[in-house]
């Protein structure tokens, strides 16, 4: 069990539902929330809207339609402003996004905006690939989720969860320790390689938090997976949405918003349950928005960011089960419909979520790189 003292907790926790104080949890009384979804505030800057409409198009990259509800996000934005959105390489990785900014510099097809992991946001700053912009709702984005100079800011976050195919797994695991039971032989899968896929890396990190490790020590997470492999429960193949639904990989360690979306998508076909495993602090991870320094459609890019970070855009993320960055501010203001909150897992674990900072992530990566293949044998 983790024994982190309270004073080392990062202020990030303020961001999660009701974490701004226990009183907030009780503020979620019906009537206080649940205003009409459509009435949520959208960007109001008329001059910006006019300028963006004049540009008429926007280039986005690496936004899978079924990831954090980006399909709907793009559709709503287009409908609202009549701006055509070119969505390139939906399945690209963060590294490829930064590469695209560099290689398409000065071309009209270059990406205007990117959605990258925090370490890649920092790499982008270092390489001078972004330009600063502060959206109207800047103040309510938690401080540790944004660059003080406005070069990047968090847009949504999630925690590591277990996606469980209930057709195969009659008795879903509740905790990390449960995964070691013989009944889950050959069932537990990561979403890719922890050395290459952020979700898999975070999965190992999350296991560390539940097995005596901490944000500063990922080693117990590697040990946990080594144990899992030894017991024959770890299935090292690459999990996909299809393999979860078909039951080839019946238990997938993945971001909550991906597992929840898989469950929603396959309703009626197969029951995919999303479990936030107990046994330690959940591990959280957020993504960042940034505007390319060479954005060919700058005004449209700024309007897109205003839209993503407005109440309306943030609720679209939430509809896709990704917790928006301004979640706790919006809950406090009572603009999150109750129906939406009811669809999400219980808010309690989210208050406990821990987010690694850059140094901790770097250290964890180095440890993982040196030990993963050495320790985990199938």
């Amino acid at each position, binding site marked *: 069990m983790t024994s982190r003292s309270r004073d080392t907790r990062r202020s990030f926790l303020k961001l999660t539902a009701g974490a701004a104080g226990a009183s907030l949890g009780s503020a979620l009384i019906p009537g206080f929330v649940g205003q009409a979804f459509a009435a949520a505030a959208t960007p109001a800057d008329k001059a910006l809207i006019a300028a963006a409409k004049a540009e008429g198009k926007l280039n986005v990259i690496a936004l899978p339609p079924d990831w954090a509800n980006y399909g709907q996000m793009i559709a709503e934005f287009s409908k609202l402003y009549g701006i055509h959105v070119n969505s390139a390489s939906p399945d690209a*990785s*963060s*590294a*490829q996004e*930064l590469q695209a900014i560099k290689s398409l510099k000065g071309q009209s097809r270059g990406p205007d905006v990117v959605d990258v*992991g925090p*370490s*890649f946001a920092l*790499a982008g700053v270092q390489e001078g690939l972004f330009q600063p912009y502060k959206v109207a709702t800047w103040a309510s984005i938690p401080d540790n989720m944004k660059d003080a100079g406005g070069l990047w800011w968090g847009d949504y976050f999630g925690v590591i969860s277990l996606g469980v195919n209930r057709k195969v797994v009659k008795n879903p695991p509740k905790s990390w320790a449960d995964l070691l039971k013989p009944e889950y*032989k*050959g*069932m537990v899968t*990561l979403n*890719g*390689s*922890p*050395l*290459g*896929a*952020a*979700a*898999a*890396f975070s999965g190992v990190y999350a296991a560390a938090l539940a097995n005596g490790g901490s944000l500063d020590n990922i080693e117990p997470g590697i040990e946990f997976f080594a144990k899992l*492999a030894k017991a*024959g429960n770890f*299935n*090292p*193949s*690459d999990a996909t949405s299809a*393999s979860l639904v078909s*039951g*080839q990989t019946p238990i997938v360690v993945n971001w909550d918003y991906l597992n929840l979306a898989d469950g929603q998508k396959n309703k009626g076909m197969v029951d995919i349950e999303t479990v936030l495993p107990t046994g330690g602090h959940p591990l959280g991870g957020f993504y960042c928005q940034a505007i390319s320094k060479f954005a060919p459609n700058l005004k449209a890019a700024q309007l897109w960011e205003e839209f993503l970070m407005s109440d309306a855009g943030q609720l679209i993320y939430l509809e896709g089960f990704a917790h928006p960055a301004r979640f706790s501010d919006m809950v406090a203001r009572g603009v999150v419909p109750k129906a939406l909150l009811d669809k999400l897992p219980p808010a309690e674990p989210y208050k406990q979520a821990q987010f690694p900072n850059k140094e901790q992530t770097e250290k964890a*990566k180095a440890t993982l*790189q*040196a030990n*993963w*293949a*050495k320790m*985990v*044998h*199938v």
Partner: protein
Amino acid sequence: MQRPAMEQAGSAAGTQPVRPRGGHWGAMIFIGPFLLYVAVFLLLPTLRLFSQAFSGDHGLTLQYVEALGQPQTVKAFINSIVLSAVSAAVGLIVGGLVAYFLLRPQAPRGLRSLVTSFSAVAANFAGVPLAFAFIATLGSLGMVTLWLKNLGIDLYGTGFSLYSMSGLIVVYAYFQVPLMIIVIIPAIEGLRREWREASESLGAGSWTYWRHVGLPILLPSLLSAYLLLFGNAFSAYATPYALTSGIISLVPIEISNVLSGNVMLAPQTGAALALGMIVVMVGVMLLYALAARRAGRWSGK
């Protein structure tokens, strides 16, 4: 050993080919674009790899190439080389034998076209679909695994695992064997019946014929087939990734991790790794060239 006369004749014939006038330019029109293509898509990227592997934030550096000495990187290279060498050997032996039996006069008529058309498909069947086909059949919850369990055989209890080195070799064999069949059939067909008859009339049995005539003539083809299979396995990426997602570290997977992953970003390390792969392939080709020189004594045409 006397050099056979035919080789000398061959080298003499290659000195002064008669060229029609203007043929030089005609040839250039066709070969030029190809050379350009090779320059743009093979030579330039390779040079770029070189420069990237040796350049750091502040000019030239050896740190990325030195980093190839890290234990996990060395392990990745060893794994890749062993996997490629073994799976190529499996392909060579199994595919070679299959091709040999197919071409025997007493082989059933329709069998050959059946096997060759299947091979043409299977040799190109790789990547994620292949990996998942194997997970569905031989995975820990796979169909065959469960059948065997019902028969009382615990496949995974015997130490076999689809997600291990031995499992990868089995999966690679699925495309290595057919590829071998495709490339070796013409070579085996090239063995003339007269040679066989001549050796038999001199009293050689089947073994002696293969030992002294058949295999020495086939050797260059077998060597180049082995090289092709080795390279084929050495660069395979999607199949092992979908199957083991990085549990068994292989060089192509390491490259993708540092180049296009969401966790690490180190393009220079990727370039150094790719350079390492090129060095290994060049080494293998040198060995091949040496072996082919020795083997080629018999088949100078």
